[in-house]
């Protein structure tokens, strides 16, 4: 079973050091420390295990180090920054693992950019050696790239010439959309195995600066200090520790403090039951900080994050995620009020940004997502985002006889109107309502109201609203029918329908990954017996089917 929970004391591959306002994250991959047998992580190449630590470090820097305004990502190895994803790992992995791996690494790169843009924690890549493929893509996720000028260290995206695949973590999109590299030059760069270095790398905007070896360390420190000085993060506050996330697995039931999963293997479905807050929110920010990791929104974000990753990687055949909730709408709404009121506080902002990223992770999961609104559920505001992320929402009309819990209701809060954009930049409500101004205004007019099934359906928040007589059968049939379809077709269908509206760099990265990379990953030219990935490392040349598709 793959485990995503870790902490710096268990890192095998990264060295995290914080000095004043600057953190340094040095990649020092343990060659023998791969997650699976059969490959060695040479030249600072990475597998999922390396990236899990990076994701953990990124998160901890945000919560545990409010004083840090700049993060330097560099290599602890001589003359090599990072060689990218380990090729032998990729060529030995199942297609499913490759796709999952790429998605996760992309989410981490996006989270790094999110930290630079929204957290005041700006990432800088200090490329002190050879930087290829995923290594350069990691640098591309940073706001600034400094490349050592030693006559040999280069940045490169050698996937096409070397492996017959594409850069899998947004490299192509970031070249043209983020760094504004001219596309003719990008074309040359991406077909040149050895990449570019020195002056030309700067002229072509592949890096921001080249620095001689003798001045490299000092220059990196100076640039990082400049960036940190511009950060609004508080220098004098103590951080919020992230202790190990409590999780109990008991057969097909998994419990977190704020979440319970119940897996139904026969139907290929899991119920994800969110537990709303049981107490009123903290009176003010100081109290929230004293609660630390137990602060309900943060606790929920961590649990949901871990649950999504666990289900993605360890429960691949559980194709339908059924989202439910238990609790009080008022309590959830009260937390939303706190998040909105104190959004300028660094901790409240981080908790909200974390929820935003987890919700994006949910959107991007290749699983059917159904939302169930029943008596006793608490889909208000932040939790209503779960319904808006769902492919379909079933809401019980009224109550169930003999059930004395309050009837099914949903509630919108201001948090549904901007705090949690999707990768397209739209709120989930806008995406649901086709960005129709009238429909959105209608919904906004009902902020704070408890909406019953008929009202929710009318506003576009519920898909179907069976009454108590039909409820059980309707829900059961929907889940059973879903399980009968082709999982591949469903993944494509859902991904195509979930993201209406505009594209952003972030949405493009995932769309291109799914459409192109994942296609190429399946093709004989890459993975056939004579394909480039299979032949890599044997010294034998790949054989290509020359037909263009």
């Amino acid at each position, binding site marked *: 079973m793959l485990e995503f929970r870790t902490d710096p004391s268990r890192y095998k591959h990264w060295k995290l050091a914080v000095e004043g306002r600057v953190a340094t994250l040095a990649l020092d991959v343990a060659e023998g420390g791969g997650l699976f047998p059969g490959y060695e992580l040479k030249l600072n190449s990475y597998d999922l295990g390396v990236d899990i630590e990076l994701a953990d470090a990124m998160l901890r820097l945000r919560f545990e180090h409010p004083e840090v305004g700049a993060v330097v990502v560099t290599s602890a190895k001589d003359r090599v920054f990072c060689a990218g994803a380990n090729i032998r790992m990729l060529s030995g992995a199942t297609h499913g693992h490759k796709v999952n791996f790429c998605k996760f690494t992309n989410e981490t790169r996006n989270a790094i950019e999110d930290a630079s843009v929204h957290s005041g924690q700006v990432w800088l890549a200090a490329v002190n050696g050879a930087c290829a493929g995923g290594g350069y893509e990691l640098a591309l996720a940073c706001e600034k790239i400094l490349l050592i*000028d*030693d*006559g*040999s260290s280069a940045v490169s995206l050698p996937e096409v*010439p070397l492996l017959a695949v594409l850069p899998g973590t947004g490299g192509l999109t970031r070249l043209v959309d983020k760094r504004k590299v001219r596309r003719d030059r990008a074309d040359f760069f991406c077909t*040149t*195995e*050895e990449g570019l270095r020195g002056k030309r790398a700067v002229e072509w905007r592949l890096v921001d600066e080249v620095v*001689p*070896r*003798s001045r490299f360390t000092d220059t990196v420190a100076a640039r990082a200090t400049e960036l940190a000085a511009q950060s609004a993060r508080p220098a004098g506050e103590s951080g919020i520790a992230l202790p190990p996330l409590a999780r109990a697995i008991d057969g097909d039931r998994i419990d977190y403090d704020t979440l319970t999963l119940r897996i139904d293997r026969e139907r290929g479905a899991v119920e994800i039951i969110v537990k709303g807050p049981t107490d009123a929110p903290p009176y003010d920010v100081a109290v929230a900080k004293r609660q630390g990791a137990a602060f309900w929104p943060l606790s929920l974000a961590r649990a949901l994050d871990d649950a999504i990753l666990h289900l993605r990687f360890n429960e691949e055949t559980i194709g339908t995620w059924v989202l439910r909730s238990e609790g009080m709408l008022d309590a959830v709404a009260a937390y939303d009020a706190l998040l909105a009121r104190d959004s300028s506080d660094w901790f409240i902002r981080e908790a909200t940004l974390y929820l935003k990223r987890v919700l994006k992770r949910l959107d991007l999961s290749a699983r059917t997502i159904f939302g169930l609104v029943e008596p006793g559920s608490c889909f208000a505001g932040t939790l209503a985002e779960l319904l808006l992320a769902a492919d379909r929402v079933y809401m019980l009309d009224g109550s169930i006889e003999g059930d004395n819990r309050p009837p099914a209701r949903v509630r919108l809060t201001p948090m549904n109107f901007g705090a949690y954009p999707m990768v397209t930049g739209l709120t989930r409500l806008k995406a649901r309502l086709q960005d129709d101004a009238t429909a959105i205004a209608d919904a906004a007019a009902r902020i704070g109201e408890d909406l019953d099934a008929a009202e929710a359906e009318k506003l576009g928040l519920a898909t179907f609203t069976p009454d108590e007589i039909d409820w059980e059968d309707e829900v059961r049939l929907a889940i059973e029918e879903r399980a009968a379809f082709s999982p591949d077709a469903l993944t494509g269908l859902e991904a195509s329908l979930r993201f209406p509206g505009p594209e952003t760099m972030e949405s493009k990265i995932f769309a291109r990954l799914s459409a192109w990379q994942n296609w190429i990953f399946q093709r004989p030219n890459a993975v056939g017996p004579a394909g480039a990935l299979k032949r*890599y*490392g*044997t*010294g*034998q*040349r790949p054989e290509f089917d020359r037909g263009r598709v």
Partner: protein
Amino acid sequence: MAIDYIERIPNNVDLSRDRRLQRALEEWQPRYLDWWREMGPESYQGLDVYLRTATSVDAKGWASFGHVKMPEYRWGIFLAEPEAGRTIGFGEHKGEPVWQEVPGEYRGVLRRLIVTQGDTEPASVEQQRHLGHTAPSLYDLRNLFQVNVEEGRHLWAMVYLLHAYFGRDGREEAETLLERRSGDEDKPRILGAFNEKTPDWLSFFMFTYFTDRDGKYQLASLAESGFDPLARTCRFMLTEEAHHMFVGETGIGRVIQRTCELMREHKVHDVAPFGAINLDTMQRYLNFHYSVSLDLFGSEISTNAANFYSMGLKGRFEEGRREDDHRLTDAFYPVLALDGGRVASRDEPALTSLNARLRDDYSTDCARGVVRWNQVIKRHGIDFELKLPHQAFNRRIGAFANMHVTPEGEVISKETWNAAVDRWLPTEQDRAHVQSLMKPVREPGKFASWIAPPARGINNQPADFQYVKFS
């Protein structure tokens, strides 16, 4: 600037009619001379040195002797004569006609191979630039300079290929070859061993025996290349490389000779008080230079080496004499590896083991000289044998990097290593003693106390010939 190409740059590549090449060399040649003046042999640029110059590739022209000032040396461009109907001898293109132009698909890889080889040539000149001050005789001083100008010519040879076949990128790489500096923090030479100092003449002889021999094996593999201009260039370079190894082998042999003579004469083991170098010190120098040179072959298991072979760019040593399919896709080769705390041999796919195989060939070759040195010791009736250390000893690259292995091949702890390393690698004391002997001898026919005269002179010149004229 008009250059009389035939006179200034002896060549057999029809330089006077190749405008593209002329244009490239017109820019590069002055920079090369600047580099030579700045980084070539220190203080001796104005002296007349008895040098061999290649003026053509035939038996008559490849060795024209005469006194010349080094900056006026005629660095030429020579390719071995083409072989009619030559076909690619190995890899996936085996049997196809050799390439006269760079195949587009392999352009980047070939360029990298040529640049890596080319970078070592000026590097060794830089490493050795101070040695002229302490030469043990005019004969040795001349040999040093001969080696230096030929390394310079080898740089020319590689630059010729870059200019002639790789367009703008090739010209840029040729410039960078002159910009990197051995041991420079900002612009180091590409390979680690070429950034180390050559501090004394014993190191120089060891370098020319062991490290230049790596060059021989690299060149010999490239001489098999399906890219014919590279193959022909390397074949001609090999004739010169042989002289460098001759300097190394006879140099070490003469030091041993001198030591043995003194041991016999004074009936002692320790000849240091007599201004010579003890045999165990020689062994430690040998251990060091051999192990550092082994690193130059790269990782035992190498995808790059496998690719170069399959692409038909870099073959095995004496590829043509080997009897197998020359494709190696189904073959295996025994490679040394760590196995349960011991160094043991295990079969690996032959393609990815090409570095290990070339290293083995090299080791076999190295051992031949050691046998000849031991004959010198034996002839003096002294009970001592020089030995090559185990391949896993003192390695920084490959399967044995970061491990501690004795010269006999036994894996040991760091503590044991630290306690014994002074027996195996040159100590501060060794180096200080060797350094103390480095006094220049400039009288024709005279030699420093620690080295015997050569058996015969260069180009059969008499013993007191003035190889270098100090005016």
